[in-house]
C-alpha cells in the first residue's frame, strides 16, 4: 500500500492509464474522480462486496426451489409476455 497526500485538484496515476483525482474535500468526505479504460471496472468497495455476497447467495438456489417457483408461476393466471 502506498500512502500519500494530495491536495484538491491534484491526481495520482496508476499504471499507464488510470488517473484518480481529488475533486473536493468537505469534512470527512472526499469527492474523487476516476478516469480508467473501459476494461477496468471501478466500484465502491462496500457495494462490490455486497454484490459478491448477493451473487453467491443467488447461485445457491436449489433445483427444488426452482421447481417450486415454476409450479407457482405456471399455476398463476398471468398474461403471456413477449
Amino acid at each position, binding site marked *: 500500500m502506498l500512502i500519500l497526500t494530495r491536495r484538491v485538484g491534484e491526481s495520482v496515476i496508476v499504471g499507464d492509464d488510470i488517473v484518480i483525482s481529488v475533486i473536493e474535500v468537505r469534512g470527512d468526505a472526499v469527492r474523487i474522480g476516476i478516469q480508467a479504460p*473501459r476494461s477496468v*471496472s471501478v*466500484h465502491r468497495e462496500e*457495494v*462490490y462486496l*455486497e*454484490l*459478491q*455476497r*448477493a*451473487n*453467491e*447467495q*443467488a*447461485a445457491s*438456489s*436449489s433445483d427444488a*426451489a*426452482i421447481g*417450486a*417457483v*415454476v409450479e*407457482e*408461476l*405456471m399455476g398463476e393466471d*398471468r398474461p*403471456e*409476455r413477449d
Partner: protein
Amino acid sequence: MMERTRQLHFVEPLPGFAGEDEYTLEPIDPRGLLFSLRAVNEPSLRFVLTPAEAFFDDYNPDVAGAVAPVLGGEDISLLLVLTLGVGLADATANLRAPIAVSASTGRAVQVVIDDETLPMRERIVRQ
C-alpha cells in the same frame, strides 16, 4: 428475444465468480419468466434470471447507453439475478446489479447501477 438457448460471453466475470466468463442462458419455463445461466466450465454454477420487465413494470434504469459500447451491440436487454428461497413469496431480485445482454453479439455484463435506493434483494411478488 431469448426464447432459445444462447451462449453468453461475460466481458467481466460476475463479482464473486472470477474465472468464469462463458455461460449458457436457457429458458426454464414456457412463459419465458425464468432462465438458467450456467457456467460452461463449471456446470454446478447456476443462476436463475428473469427478464427485468417480467416482474418490475416500472424498472427501466438508463444503462443501455453505457453498456452498448462495451457489449458491441445496441440491442440491450436486462435480466435480473434471482435468489430463490422456498417459494415465489420469498424470491428476490437484484435491482441494483442487473445483467445486460446484447443478443446480437452474445456478450453480457453485470452492471452496478449507481443508485443506492435500488435494492439487491427485492421481493418479486408484492406481499
